[in-house]
């Protein structure tokens, strides 16, 4: 392959493939090339690992009502607006589908009896997994707690075996005067009190030292929240302030 000695081009193609911007014939050619080149597969995996946290960070959005209604109409889940003819009748197409399936099965059976053939079993190729992919981590994306506000306020990330939680403020406003933001782990069991994970430094990017490795400190918390507390953090380890942001804490492995 004449492209093999062009690692810069390979890297860009891998990036475009992972992003989904490599299309058409170029994408098909790249996939064919990837099947026979382990280094190229590793390059794609590296890009997918880089891009995965970005995909996780995108907040979930509900589709507009009109889009949902259109989907319902298409799958027949919503009543039709007007009287439908036999062409639009679900019963007609269901019966037609049964008859067509029966005919197809009979035809296939007849052909199979007339001309038995050796069926080629597809070979499943084992894909090499690159060891440099993103390490197993906990990732949390916290959105504004207000009902009509879905801004992404805060992103946190901790490798599974690390006791450092990397945090980045997105649109989290400055703390009110003489107050601090505090990060809490919310236990899965209802009624159990939130557990403080630490006071947020005021920098845009910073780290919080966890009490133990993330696997111990975060595994029991399916969600995290940020509250406004007195300067330096909640007194007695009990949250007293309002919740400004909350979100799921996910395992990424």
């Amino acid at each position: 392959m004449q492209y093999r000695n062009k690692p810069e081009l390979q890297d860009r193609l891998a990036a475009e493939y992972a992003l989904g911007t490599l299309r058409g014939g170029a994408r098909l050619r790249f996939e064919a090339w990837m099947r026979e080149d382990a280094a190229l597969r590793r390059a794609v995996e590296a890009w997918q690992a880089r891009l995965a946290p970005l995909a996780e960070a995108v907040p979930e959005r509900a589709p507009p009502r009109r889009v949902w209604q259109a989907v319902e109409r298409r799958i027949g889940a919503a009543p039709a607006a007007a009287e439908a003819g036999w062409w639009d009748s679900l019963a007609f197409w269901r019966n037609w589908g049964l008859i067509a399936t029966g005919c197809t099965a009979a035809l296939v059976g007849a052909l199979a009896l007339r001309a038995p053939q050796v069926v080629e079993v597809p070979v499943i190729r084992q894909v090499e997994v690159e060891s440099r992919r993103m390490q197993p981590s906990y990732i949390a994306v916290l959105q504004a707690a207000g009902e009509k506000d879905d801004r992404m306020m805060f992103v946190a990330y901790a490798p599974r075996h690390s006791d450092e939680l990397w945090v980045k403020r997105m649109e989290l406003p400055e703390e009110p005067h003489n107050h601090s933001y505090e990060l809490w782990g919310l236990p899965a069991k209802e009624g159990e009190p939130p557990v403080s994970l630490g006071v947020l430094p005021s920098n845009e990017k910073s780290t919080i030292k966890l009490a133990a490795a993330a696997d111990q400190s975060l595994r029991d918390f399916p969600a995290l929240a940020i509250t406004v507390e007195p300067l330096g953090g909640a007194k007695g380890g009990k949250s007293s302030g309002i919740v400004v942001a909350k979100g799921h804490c996910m395992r990424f492995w």
Partner: protein
Amino acid sequence: MRLALLLAALATLAGAAAAADPDPRAARHALRGTLVMQGDAGVFRTCGDKGREHFLVDATGGAEITAAYRELAASPGVPVFMELVGIVVERPAGALPDRALQAERLARAERSGPGCRRVLGRIEALAIGSAPAWQVEVSPAGVTFASLEERGMLAFPPRTGEWPADGALRYEGRSETGTLSLALEPGRCRDASSGNLYPLTARVVLNGTEYRGCAFRGRSTAATGPAAAR
């Protein structure tokens, strides 16, 4: 952990090291390697099995190297491939690393790509771009355009003459597959897909279709002045 402690210790020395004035007569070297930083302290390790570690002094004026590292490294302590031009200074006996690099120019910084694995050999310049991904390679053997689009790989005759002193390069080539023109201009260039930084902007016109991207010069031509690439 060891590296973190080393870098933390180096950070305290950074101010003193940075204060040293570079000797204008000293040879400038173009070095390729990986930079690791913690805070404001960095260690630059040159490529190769016998790569040597250098205490980094960011002498670019605007802390350009430090800023590029912070932008491209996924997190502190992660190596970023760079090509730096500057003065290598021996440090006092017993100091680790035993050399310092007073880096005056950031030629290239890459978060992805072949990095130290890439042997440029006789390549004089490489221009690259995205959407769709393409590459133009300039070497004494000729000029090639490669992409995965329908055109595939096209070869054109070699260029002639010295590399212009102002750093800009113009090339026009014709073959049975068509015409290609290449214009490389000095100026900081950021690759759209990777965020990598390059010292040249590139404009390619292949059979009437324009491609814009970034470029860098090969190992043999990267250094300026009395430098010899290490």
